[in-house]
């Protein structure tokens, strides 16, 4: 308990560090080359366009209750993008900051928060884009949109422990980055992003969706933006996801703490 309080105090003290590194990360992504900033937004926009064409125009797919496919897809794809981007970059976090970790006293446990902050800015920009798409398709702004921060924070909570675990292990075995890419690819398709959970998935596989914390967040985004669902509608699942996030944070945190002292030797 005491160490948990120390940890939170340390996080508060490290807020400048987090801010400085996140700002640096965002700047390096949006500046440098002339088109780099545009690419950061063009890439997801293009993905949206391709999926829209394939599923909406070619397959004539529809969301539940007749929702246009593009709305169903964009509300699921953006939180997924945040998740996969944070996890991919976060896994490389310690290695990418080896110039700080190796020869300086540096609180490397702050790195997951750096990547979450940096990716959140990207996420915010894309959400604005999504908001425009929604409004153009006649979706009205409701009070339920204010639930988005809750689901966003839930997703962050899940990511923190995972990032600690993966970024620490990645120092010792750099292949992990490749593995994360493969796992994320599979994860994308077993999460209801392009397909609809209800009616499509046979009952014996429904558990796959229930244990998937990202599915919980994605459904939460959709419920808030499209279907006017209050966030407490899936009470048990909320409890499960938050317990999972806490367990991941404890596991990832203790692994990170144990391996941290070896970073300097291995990097």
């Amino acid at each position, binding site marked *: 308990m005491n160490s948990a309080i120390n940890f939170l105090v340390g996080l508060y003290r490290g807020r400048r560090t987090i801010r400085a590194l996140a700002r640096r990360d965002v700047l390096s992504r949006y500046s440098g080359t002339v088109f780099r900033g545009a690419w950061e937004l063009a890439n997801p926009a293009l993905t949206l366009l391709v999926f829209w064409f394939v599923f909406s125009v070619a397959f004539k797919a529809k969301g539940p209750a007749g929702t246009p496919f593009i709305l169903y897809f964009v509300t699921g794809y953006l939180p997924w993008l945040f998740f996969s981007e944070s996890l991919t970059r976060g896994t490389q976090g310690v290695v990418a900051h080896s110039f700080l970790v190796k020869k300086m006293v540096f609180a490397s446990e702050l790195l997951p928060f750096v990547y979450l902050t940096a990716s959140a800015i990207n996420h915010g920009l894309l959400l604005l884009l999504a908001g425009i798409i929604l409004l153009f398709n006649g979706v009205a702004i409701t009070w339920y949109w204010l639930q988005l921060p809750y689901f966003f924070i839930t997703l962050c909570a899940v990511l923190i422990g995972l990032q600690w675990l993966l970024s620490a292990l990645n120092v*010792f075995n750099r292949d992990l980055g490749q593995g994360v890419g493969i796992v994320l690819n599979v994860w994308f398709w077993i999460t209801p992003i392009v397909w609809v959970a209800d009616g499509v998935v046979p009952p014996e596989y429904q558990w796959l969706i229930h244990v998937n914390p990202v599915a919980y967040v994605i459904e939460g985004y959709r419920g808030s933006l499209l279907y006017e669902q209050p966030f407490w509608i899936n009470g048990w699942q909320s409890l499960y996801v938050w317990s999972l996030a806490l367990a991941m944070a404890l596991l990832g945190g203790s692994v990170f703490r144990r391996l941290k002292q070896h970073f300097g030797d291995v990097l």
Partner: protein
Amino acid sequence: MLENSVSKQQVAGDVVISVSNVSKTYKLYPSHQDRLKEALHPFRKRYHTEFSALHDVSFEIRKGESVGILGRNGAGKSTLLQLIAGVISPTRGSVSVNGKVAALLELGAGFNPDLTGRENVILAGTIGGASDEEVMKRVRVIEEFADIGIFFDQPMKVYSSGMYARVAFANAIHVDPDVIIVDEILGVGDAKFQEKCHRKLDELRSRNVAILFVSHSVNTILAVCERCILLDKGEANLIGSAVEVVNAYHGLLYGRPSAELGKGRRPSADGPGTLGFASGPAATTSPIVEWLLNDTTLVDRISTRISYNKDHFRTGSGQARILDYIVVVGEETDARVIRRDADIEIYLKVKFTEDVPEPVVGLAITKIDGIHVYGTNSRLMSLDLMPGRAGQFAVYRFKFSNELVGGDYFMNFGVSTVGGNGETILLDNLRSVAHLVFEHTREATGMINLHSALEQVTLVPTMR
């Protein structure tokens, strides 16, 4: 988790660094696969071999102290500094640091090569916990101190190592550290910048900042540090005054075990160029030489000389041994104070305990702080001395005139030989063995009296 267990423990009093019984062992793996295999092996099979970089090192450093670390390559200097900086943790023992450490561990440390100097300085400042205004104020000071012009706004990967050192040093000293660790890095700066750095280090020391300094330049160590630690093969061999440790370090560098002797080049036969007065009939018939030659007791009489300095340091493998020295100035034998412009003769009596085919005899003059003022030896003078045989002794004479600025100087005497690889093997080396006082020179300061002349050529009236 956030607090670094190594660097944040409180230490009593004005001790800023306390290193107690610290050992550091590295696990060396034949390959990366083996590291992985060991981590995953179900029966905990060991794939690594252990390398002990530091063994049972203990010392304390107080506020405002500047301490040098000397040692050959691979002696564990960098490991020790990394431990103190808190970058790595000790295998055994504990390192406690009371205060903020600014570490200049190596070129490239702490800076992202893709960022400009300015961006890196800002990033480092912010990570260090300074507010935005503070960081901006600091950046201006650092830019001015580093003085690298437009390169401050270029990515650091295009920097020369000198520019890099400038930015790194400027950054380190401006973060208000309690301890500053400097590893070699200043050596790449030019002379002017080095001087600036040393002035700055002096200033920091006067503000009670402790300085830990690693350099292979003994003169720099002597100029910067009061105390020194000598590391050899991971152990702290000697902790003491800078002069003492520098002497021991030289002993470590040049003193070789006697087994290496005798592998040298073939002894040169007597021939042209061989000195006449080596051990046979003396070329001069000075009474001193006669006395030295007639005293065949082969007793070490060095300590009976008036100028003898009991805090001298002796190294060497012992195949030859300096038995006696006599400083002669004019009529005065065994002089201690040297008159200005006097001619000086120094006699050295050397006993050979083993055959030394190619002996080399030398002397050096150092200032009280170890600065090398002058040195010479028979090899530098291209003189082949006669081979020394076991049991023989020889008397040598150096002659020079006093061109030194007045003050205290130390004499070093040495007998060495040349090893198979052309390296110098010290047989007997007496450092600071004679303490001579050179008469005050009113007209000059420094070390060497160049006898300047000065005249006024003209005085032009101001043009109106």
